[in-house]
């Protein structure tokens, strides 16, 4: 089965309750994909109520892990 549609991430809405980006599914429910999914490179958003899914078009760099603040901060210098 192929994707029902291709949707740009800009067309998806962030849903606080579901903690996911969502887009309307023709069944009445919502296609959903989490930030972690996107960070992992996942591009399929599925609907919990039916068999349909969509392909999400996004730039993976926008969801890449932010640089670890501990590493970027200057380390305290140990003094004897």
């Amino acid at each position: 089965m192929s994707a029902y549609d291709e949707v740009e991430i800009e067309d998806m809405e962030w849903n606080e309750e579901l903690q996911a980006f969502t887009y309307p599914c023709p069944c009445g429910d919502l296609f959903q994909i989490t930030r972690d999914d996107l960070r992992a490179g996942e591009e399929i958003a599925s609907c919990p109520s039916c068999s349909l899914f969509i392909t999400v078009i996004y730039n993976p760099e926008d969801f890449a892990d932010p640089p670890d603040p501990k590493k970027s901060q200057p380390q305290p210098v140990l003094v004897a």
Partner: protein
Amino acid sequence: MQPSLQRRRFISGGKLSMEGDFLEEKAAVAMGEEDRYDEEVRAWSWGAASDGQLGTGTLEDQLFPQPLLNFPPLSSAAAARRIAQIACGGAHSIALTGDGRALTWGRGTCGQLGHQELSNCLLPKPVKFLESFTITYVSAGWNHSGFVTDTGQLFMCGDGSFGQLGNGDHQSHGSPVEVLFFSSKHVEQIACGMRHSLALVSDAGSSGSSIYGFGSGRHGQIGMFESGTQRSHNFPKVIEGFENCEVVSIYANGDHSAALSADGRLYIWGRRFSGRSDDHTPQISPSPSRITQVALGWNHALVLTDNELYMFGGYRHGMLSGSPQMSPMQQTLVPCAQARTLERVPCLDENVVRIAAGAEHSALITEKGTIMTWGWGEHGQLGLGNTYDQTCPQRVNIDYKGSSASAQLGIYCGSGFTIVAKVD
């Protein structure tokens, strides 16, 4: 949506039983009280029921037509028991009665039911806020609703996050709010899509009509080009191209918009249909003859002419709404370069009088009262007793026991569900 079913059932049930003026639930159960109401069934619903959009009290998908009992609810006036129009959205429905009252049911989590609360409602319930107005036209979008009064005022409620309520902000409202932009104008119709709205305004002293668009314009659905950063308009803006045109009907579904002129021409704009680019300005759709009715899905459209039913789009999602058996009919009367291909809908041997389109399914009624459906069937929205997709219109059997033979049937599709009603 499974985890929240129990919670929703509890909330809706609690509210229903607490409100003394809302007797449908009791009436449906206590069928013995014939003297309190008549038993004539005036509407049937089937398909997806995740949010109570079928109006029968169920949260489970229904594969066969189910009667709406005691609908519209008991009232002393005969006009209050007539159904004038039904509008179905993403997962909610609006019924307009003969005396201009609005009832809503289904998903209410964005305020789209207008009940001043953000909860689902499993049975039709009057919109109290509008009781002092006479409503003449209603429309249901994905998560928002529009109500037009006999004096040309427009009220809207529900999701406003794309500016689709038209009051200059992105607020959502659980109670209908008047769109003040139109306070000195006369609104005739409202059409609510997924994230946008269209309003048809009659111009006194002019032969033309005005159509205003507001909400998301990402795919051209409000009839204007988006500027780099502005992707929605939260204030109504006139759509150019209808200055000398008398528009009789406007339509919105998904990211599509359409208008039908008095002389039977169809203008269409918004998100691309199969293989096309988005249209940011209204385009005249080719047609072999005068168009009388239109229905928009999310990826297809139905076009009824004086004697044929056509469909375009639909191939894009294969089985969902298109038919490989259809023979494409090339058009020669094409005023624009980007021609759409109309396909004649097959398997019809009776004249079609009413059409409707859900997100990915289609429905019609013939002059003999035959109800037919086709397209996506996963949630039972075709009413055929199964969850199969259909590429040709299939006959739906409804038990008309107690029906008056003279009643006209209307057919209405929400995203994943269907309603048939006797209308006057």
